[in-house]
């Protein structure tokens, strides 16, 4: 049976309105409600289902980030992960942390923990990078099944259905492998009360990137974060002729 490593990121909750900091260095995160990246929730759900189907022996949740990331890990534990590893990254270092750093951490942990399958969300809804799964697979030199909407265990490995432009692609991979979860892979469960209580007692190990020998030196510099342009107000025209005239005037027809 396989051991599954799941990456979970703490992001601003998708129901919260995002505000850009006045100095345009980033977005406001202080006092803003955070929760688990929705795609990572799908990844956790898939791992837990593998365990319930006796395809996996153990599910380990990993999160890189500030102290509060432990809350995200507790959520993963309440959903059914067996234990958690928190890689504490705080302050300026966290602000410039990139998928390459996370991928290096996940790759190193996969080896240390003898994981057979790594599942992460296809992207985080805060930076939309969509790189971690691919980079992790490359660093480990494992096959990858990204944008997975269905994962089935076969004798020799995994059959993964991928969501691609205009359709679905089915691929077969050997194990070990890296999977990234797409939206339709499953519907994540709500943690039940007994499991929420149990999660408080499950093991959560704290580590640093340094412990894993991963250098977090930044390779990028954020120059400016801007609000999207405000949508311009529409206007009501009295008849079709005026509409056509306006469209012509604007060069649309």
């Amino acid at each position, binding site marked *: 049976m396989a051991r599954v490593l799941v990456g979970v990121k703490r992001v601003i*909750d*998708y*129901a*919260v309105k995002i505000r850009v900091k006045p100095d345009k260095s980033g977005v406001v995160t202080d*006092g803003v*409600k955070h*929760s*688990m990246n*929705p*795609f990572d929730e799908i990844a956790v759900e898939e791992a837990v289902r593998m365990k319930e189907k006796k395809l996996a022996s153990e599910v380990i949740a990993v999160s890189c980030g500030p102290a509060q990331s432990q809350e995200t890990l507790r959520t993963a534990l309440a959903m059914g992960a067996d234990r958690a590893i928190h890689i504490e990254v705080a302050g300026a270092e966290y602000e410039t942390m990139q998928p390459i750093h996370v991928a290096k951490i996940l790759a190193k942990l996969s080896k240390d923990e003898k994981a057979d399958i790594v599942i992460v969300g*296809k*992207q985080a*809804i805060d930076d*939309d990078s969509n790189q971690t799964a691919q980079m992790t697979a490359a660093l480990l030199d494992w096959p990858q099944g990204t944008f997975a909407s269905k994962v089935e265990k076969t004798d020799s490995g995994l059959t993964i259905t991928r969501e691609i432009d205009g359709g679905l692609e089915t691929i077969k991979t050997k194990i070990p492998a890296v999977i990234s979860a*797409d*939206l*339709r892979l499953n*519907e994540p*469960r*709500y*943690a*039940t*009360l*007994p499991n*929420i*209580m149990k999660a408080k007692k499950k093991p959560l190990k704290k580590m640093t990137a340094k412990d894993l020998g991963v250098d977090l030196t930044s390779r990028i510099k954020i120059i400016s974060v801007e609000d999207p342009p405000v949508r311009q107000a529409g206007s009501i025209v009295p008849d079709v002729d005026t509409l056509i005239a306006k469209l012509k005037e604007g060069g649309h027809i």
Partner: protein
Amino acid sequence: MINSLTPFVTYIKNFKILNQVRCASQVLPQLSSEKYNVKRKSFGIIEASDVDYFKTVLSEDRVLTDDNDVLPFNIDWIKNCRGQSKLVLKPKTTQEVSTILKYCNQKRLAVCPQGGNTGLVGGSVPVFDEIVLSFILMNKIISLDEISGALICEAGCILENLDNYVREHNLIMPLDLGAKGSCHIGGNISTNAGGLRLLRYGNLHGSVLGVEAVKADGTVIDCLKSLKKDNTGYHLKHLFIGSEGTLGLVTKVAIHCPALPKAVSVGFFGVENFENILRLYASAKSSLGEILSAFEMADNDSISSTVKNLKIPNPISDYPFYVLLETHGSDETHDSEKLTRFLEKEMESGLIIDGTVTSDPAKMQTIWNLRENIAGAGLIEGYIFKYDVSLPLRSYYNLVPLLRQRLGTKASRVYGYGHVGDGNIHINVVVPKYSQEASSLLEPYIFEEVSKLKGSISAEHGVGFRKPHFIHYSKDANALQLMQQLKQLMDPNGILNPYKVLPEI
């Protein structure tokens, strides 16, 4: 990212879409006057010269006379009532409302004020040819005092827009209800709407600081103070709170907004029986104290019909009863400690069989969404008789099994849900099609039972058009007489929202 997340958001929007689809596909409801056998009173009849006059008061585009334009204003959202109005006016200012009413009063033209038209007792739609006075364009926010929390705005502001606005300033609206996306604050006040957080933030008689209203003769009554204390003379603002537009039309509102809670949690639990819900409520009050902001219940039929008909997922398994509990507090650690202790205790005691609890805004929204959509869920299965009653907590759920027995196979579902914390239950009786037979089995039976239990036949929906002839089950003759005298004093010609609230003498 936005595209990929669309399905998440779609859950939440689904309800509105369904509603639109239904509007487009269904036949028109029967005329209220025929369905309920009402006679037109001797009001004036609108003539072309009246319409011309209104066009001089308002710009032409704010005077609707085309049948297709007027139709939506004639029908209530549960498709129970249909009026025959031929004229809709959309004033933008108090002065315009005053001018219109002064003219109508002189000509004895009846007027039906309308906000978001989300009422459940037919109070917001005309019965005959009353002029619909829509507040849809009176939607400006006038001021917000961030320190006192006093918000002043026009009556046609949509509740959800106000809530979004005050949230930017770390405040929230003191009321919240399922219809928040459409209902107007003026309508909320005119009907003394209750909603989901009354338990914590109280009734509108407490949180409304002042109102500006226009009397039937066009006189503007300015009680728009934003003071918490003002004991100068009679408290006139209360006459306009809950009088459903029969004593005057609310044009502006001053309302107290409490502080935006920094920590919010929502729990959704399965419970074995109603007795246990009461025990759980008592325990929640003592264990959670000041942070308890909502305590709602729903029976199995309420939730399962919502899950089935509206495809909204139920986050937990199937249970005989459900409780939704919400906390609002100022410190996440403090609240979560309290909540954890409470949950551990009541899981142990067995009052909570199972459930879930979350502080993620998106998840909390999904749970609330399930609760809020119960109201509309039965519409897909046929016609709903809706009752909104207050009962002593001991007898809170008694009527549901009684009605199930009484209607037998004539009803496809009878279910109850509501605000346990306020002693207010909503009872919905779903029948395949409206029939006089089902109606006469229900009414006045249900009101008699409520009266016997010393409850109120209308807790928060009001009396409107549907219940004036049942009001005596909750108010005695002397009280009703005083109401008639007030009406006579403030609207001697009876032009404001006729056929509503008070019974014919």
